[in-house]
């Protein structure tokens, strides 16, 4: 079956679950003429396509390149070159090679070492937020926190971080959106060129004087074993700048919003901080930021009676899969003690989110620090503007009352 719904339009996107529930029920492998691809909403199918299908490619850049005119290839040269080297948009063996080189820095054991500094940073940000008339969880708390963490990991000096933050936001529309508008594309292209130059210079500095950061580790891998190219090092840094901010910032905000809308759960978590680990998993399931991710079919296959053709795009709607009643009882209920085993908020299979362990640590600490001091934190009544990007469903701002009266 076919639909033509623009699901990023505010009337759907502000509360997408009724739409995707209906789709999952009546048309689980649905051709969408607006997105121009198959929209997949059942947990079983998304899980299968992520982990076991032999026909899924993450390389949406190759498809875009093949369909681009010579003029577009020239105008979007930096986009094609840089995104073409992102591990998230590559398949084996390139993906495997790049993932091997970056994975160790993000394992649970490695990111645990950052806990003390993350907590110190969160406390400082909270101190500053407490002086504000209209504290914004995004601008005043979550975003500065995630920015400082990923910048430190990469080796970006503190005085340059706000520039880097602005860049990360500007390139978000390019990522797996599939429907970014022309103006945002042009802005993103010029931002990519700036980031390319910035990281090329930073790489050169770290080659001469290595530091204890990821860019130095990648430089060493290039020097010592030609394990990755300079383009790939720079592309990886750019990817991590985007991926290391947008998504985790949104998770923290979505979590505070969800806890505000479910006060019994917020009270439970505030009074029993040892529930945090499971609570973060449930918040990931319930309001994880990456609502859907794209794939391209590499061969023809059948899925629930629909004929998928080689070259077709598929939208793996993680946010809908995580609310599938066939997988999770009473899925629209936030329950911080439920069993969330197997949730797909970080996807699954080879492209399982590299930053997942870091996101877990950052979100746990950010929520804990906030609830410790302000257990009744409550979003103020406001019209939430949701970012219109399918890989980052999060509010643009979230004003809260730390001590509601």
């Amino acid at each position, binding site marked *: 079956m076919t639909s033509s719904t623009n699901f990023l339009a505010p009337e759907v996107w502000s509360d997408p679950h009724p739409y995707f529930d209906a789709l999952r029920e009546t048309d689980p492998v649905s051709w969408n003429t607006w997105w121009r691809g198959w929209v997949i909403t059942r947990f079983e199918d998304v899980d299968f396509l992520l982990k076991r299908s032999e026909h899924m490619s993450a390389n949406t850049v190759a498809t875009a390149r093949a369909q681009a005119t010579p003029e577009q290839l020239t105008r979007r040269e930096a986009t094609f070159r840089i995104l073409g080297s992102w591990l998230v948009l590559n398949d084996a063996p390139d993906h495997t090679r790049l993932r091997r080189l970056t994975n*160790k820095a993000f394992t649970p054991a490695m990111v645990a070492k950052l806990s003390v500094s993350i907590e110190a940073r969160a406390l400082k940000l909270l101190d500053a937020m407490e002086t504000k008339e209209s504290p914004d969880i995004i601008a005043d708390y979550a975003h500065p926190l995630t920015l400082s963490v990923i910048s430190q990991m990469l080796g970006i000096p503190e005085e340059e971080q706000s520039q880097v933050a602005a860049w990360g936001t500007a390139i978000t529309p390019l990522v797996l959106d599939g429907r970014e508008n022309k103006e945002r594309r042009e802005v993103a292209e010029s931002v990519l060129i700036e980031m390319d130059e910035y990281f090329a210079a930073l790489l050169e500095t770290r080659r001469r004087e290595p530091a204890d950061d990821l860019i130095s580790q990648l430089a060493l891998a290039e020097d010592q074993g030609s394990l990755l190219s300079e383009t790939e090092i720079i592309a990886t840094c750019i990817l991590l700048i985007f991926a290391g901010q947008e998504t985790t910032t949104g998770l923290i905000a979505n979590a505070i919003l969800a806890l505000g809308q479910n006060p019994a759960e917020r009270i439970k978590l505030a009074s029993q901080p040892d529930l945090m680990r499971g609570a973060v998993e449930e918040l990931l399931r319930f309001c994880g930021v990456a609502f859907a991710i794209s794939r391209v079919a590499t061969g023809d296959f059948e899925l629930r009676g629909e004929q998928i053709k080689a070259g077709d795009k598929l939208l793996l709607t993680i946010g809908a899969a995580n609310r599938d009643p066939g997988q999770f009882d009473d899925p629209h209920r936030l329950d911080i003690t439920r069993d969330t085993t197997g949730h797909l908020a970080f996807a699954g*299979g*080879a492209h399982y989110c590299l930053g997942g362990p870091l996101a877990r640590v950052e979100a746990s600490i950010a929520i804990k620090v906030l609830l410790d001091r302000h257990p009744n934190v409550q979003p103020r009544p406001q019209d939430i503007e949701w970012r219109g990007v399918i890989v980052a469903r999060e509010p643009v701002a979230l004003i809260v009352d730390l001590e509601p009266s």
Partner: protein
Amino acid sequence: MSDPEVRVDGDVCMGIGMCRAVAPGAFRLENGKSVFIPGSGTSDDDVIEAAENCPVEAILIGTRNAG
């Protein structure tokens, strides 16, 4: 002498495959989940490296004493 006992927790495993990338002889994919292959000749160091690289900590390594 002790012999490391290696097990993949099937509930936690998300089919990511870092284990296979690090120690290809010692792990195989079965229906979206990783399975440890005993007696493959893979070094203990490589098996430990594989476990340390698992993003969801699904690989459990214990030791048991032989005899």
